[in-house]
């Protein structure tokens, strides 16, 4: 989009959108929100960045490989974390218990926070991938 106004305003707005997304992800266990909604907002910010920076050189390129790697690593992380919890819970092993934390603080939710972050990353890149693929047929 070759429009100076949009570009400049976008440059200003995008960080705020991203901060908002991160806030939603991090506060998922305290308030409405969580990885899915926050991830979507983050993904939208990436799309917006791509939209307004597309014609210019200054665009930060996200390679396909990076997208795949981020998504897969997050998924693996999610799987491992949750799998550990599943197995210790279901098999009733007396292994290291993950602390639950104190309700009300951001770094409280025990495993919930990293899980939310992982989900957020997955959703973010998924949304971004959808957009780019629908648009150009490449990431």
């Amino acid at each position, binding site marked *: 989009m070759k429009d100076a106004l949009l570009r400049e305003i976008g440059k200003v707005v995008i960080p705020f959108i991203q901060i908002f997304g991160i806030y939603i992800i991090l506060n998922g266990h305290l*308030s*409405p929100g969580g990885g*899915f909604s926050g991830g979507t907002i983050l993904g939208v910010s990436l799309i917006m960045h791509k939209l307004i920076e597309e014609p210019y050189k200054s665009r930060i390129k996200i390679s396909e490989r990076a997208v795949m790697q981020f998504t897969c690593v997050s998924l693996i992380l999610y799987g491992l974390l949750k799998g550990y919890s599943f197995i210790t819970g279901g098999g009733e092993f007396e292994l290291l218990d993950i602390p639950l934390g104190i309700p009300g603080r951001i770094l409280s939710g025990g495993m919930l926070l990293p899980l939310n972050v992982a989900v957020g990353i997955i*959703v973010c890149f998924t949304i971004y991938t*959808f957009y780019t*693929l*629908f648009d150009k047929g490449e990431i």
Partner: protein
Amino acid sequence: MERLITNYYETASIILFGIGFMTLLIHNNLIKKIIGMNIMDTSIFLFFIAKGYISAKEAPIIRAPYMGVEGYINPVPTALMLTGIVVAVSVTAFALALTIKIYEKYGTIELNEILEKGGD
């Protein structure tokens, strides 16, 4: 019969479900089919959420004055529907991708024309 009127949320969602279902089943245009699919899914979400609603109660976020079991609505449908929404989004994305490809390959998105052209 009066239940249908008092449960108007659910009645509406069922009507939407029927409309979405039939759109998905009968319409020839792929995009409209996908819209129908989304109407159908959304109506189910509405139905679920309506099932979880209890009048005059709060969202299940437990802040300082804990109001006991009586204070909050049923959180289960909400949680389920979060999952449901994501699933619906994924299917929609995939369906749209296929539609794009169909348009590239066949030059149309009317299903009956595609089936005619398809042959083998």
